[in-house]
């Protein structure tokens, strides 16, 4: 390929990428614009909160307990060398509230609820359900997408809170009941070292951002998927990949902004 062709191919690729980015931005604007309508008809969002929130509880609770337990084991292994084994509770709580709770919940959410949203919207498109809605003068963005968007933003912070709470519970079982760390020290260090606004508040803010990002990606991928089995399969895969990468990058940016200063 000669340099001119190469430059043309590169330019075409960049143009396509910019066009897709612009399209996605407009789609996001549309979703935000239709959100008030979804809030007015909150019953539609409630159904979705059940579907993507309640039905994700098993995976969130199981993962939270396992992560909390593992964190407690690793923290004890490291801290015991310096005679600070009682700080296991504090370390686990800070790790869960600041980072692992929001990030792991968002990743699990993308894999469980995000893929389900993409597949559902994609199949609705393939089955002409969205087209039928439009022909009935009902905007699918308002009736189908916006309630799911609201549900995602509501569900993810709640799931993350449950994940962190169960994680702390798992850590308590391992550290106090199994290893034998003093229960009072476990809780008091945690109470003393965790700041409601800085740690819990910032962690919750992260989950809201992750909820917006991963739900938007899931809905966008479903709505823009090709109306074929292959198209829906590709869109579902893209949802997991894009959501995961976006969550990790956003987490880095948010952590840099929130926790970069000294305590």
């Amino acid at each position, binding site marked *: 390929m000669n340099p001119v062709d190469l430059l043309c191919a590169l330019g075409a690729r960049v143009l396509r990428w910019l066009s897709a980015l612009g399209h996605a931005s407009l789609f996001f604007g549309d979703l935000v614009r239709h959100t008030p309508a979804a809030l007015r008809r909150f019953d539609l969002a409630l159904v979705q909160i059940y579907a993507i929130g309640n039905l994700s509880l098993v995976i969130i609770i199981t993962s939270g307990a396992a992560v909390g337990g593992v964190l407690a084991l690793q923290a004890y292994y490291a801290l015991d060398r310096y005679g600070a084994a009682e700080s296991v509770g504090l370390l686990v709580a800070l790790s869960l509230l600041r980072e692992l709770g929001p990030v792991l919940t968002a990743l699990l959410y993308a894999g469980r609820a995000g893929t389900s949203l993409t597949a559902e919207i994609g199949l*609705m498109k393939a*089955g*002409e*359900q969205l*087209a*039928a809605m*439009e*022909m*009935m*003068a*009902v*905007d699918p963005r308002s*009736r189908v997408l916006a309630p799911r968007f609201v549900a995602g933003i509501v569900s993810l912070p709640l799931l993350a809170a449950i994940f962190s709470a169960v994680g702390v519970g798992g850590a308590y079982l391992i550290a106090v009941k199994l290893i034998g760390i003093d229960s009072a020290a476990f809780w008091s260090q945690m109470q003393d070292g965790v700041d409601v606004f800085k740690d819990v508040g910032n962690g919750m803010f992260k989950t809201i951002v992750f909820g917006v990002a991963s739900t938007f990606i899931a809905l966008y991928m479903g709505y823009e998927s090709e109306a074929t089995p292959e198209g829906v399969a590709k869109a579902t895969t893209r949802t997991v990949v894009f959501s995961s990468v976006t969550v990790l990058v956003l987490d880095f940016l948010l952590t840099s902004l929130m926790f970069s200063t000294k305590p």
Partner: protein
Amino acid sequence: MRQSRPQSFERPLFLICWSLQAATTEPRTLTTDNLVQIDHVTFGYDRSRTILTDVSLQFPRGRVVAIMGSSGSGKTTLLRLIGGVIRPQSGTVLFDGEPVDPSDTDKLFAVRRRLGMLFQFGALFTDLNTFENVAFPLREHTNLPDSMIRDIVLLKLNAVGLRGAASLRIAEVSGGMARRIALARAIALDPELIMYDEPFAGLDPISVGVTANLIRRLNDATDATSLIVSHDVEECFQICDYAYLISSGRIAGHGTPPELRASEDPEVRQFIRGEPDGPVRFHYPAPSIEQDLGLSG
């Protein structure tokens, strides 16, 4: 004029259920007032492939008009143009004298509230049951109390013979039933125009008869205008007042069913009689078989 109409419907019950204008079994006088008019429309999904070339069609109020043609001839594209899903490259699509403009969402949705569409495979909402599917447009576009919505939905379902299936999930109904549920949903708001996209495709003979019967009866009972896109010649001719035959993106012929049957136009004759070869070629354009098999001298 149209031929004999199916009479198997329980007429009194049907009319009571509709509580609308009295249906007549006699052919009505043709009106010159067109609900939909397509003027010199050309359309292609991209510049290299033109689907419709300078086509003009009229759909008079209160009539059942069929658009027929082989697969890929541009029939469904016409429905999409009328519904404002796509915009013609040139020419105009008028609904009740007003141009259908896909860029003006408010106006477009106002037009769409006046029409109902039956999709080829029903396009029913799989997360809702039969009752809720039919209730959907009523819940979205009216503030009627639940008791009234219930009555209307049951009447519509009764009109298509599925009142007893109101509580069934969509996964539990057959293809023919799904088509009828979709029909009940399409007429839930008593639209002025009902568009049917391949209403007979994939149905068993009984379901085809039932569906054809319903289309004609619903049209007459509600005084609506019906537009059927199909390639089923016999079923369409049995219930339509007028038919257009589309081939390769242009109007190959049009007229009443008897006129089309009597047509000497080779393209019309090939389609009506279902001849495998003629002006519409059996083979997709390709080099000769000898050339492809390496047998040419």
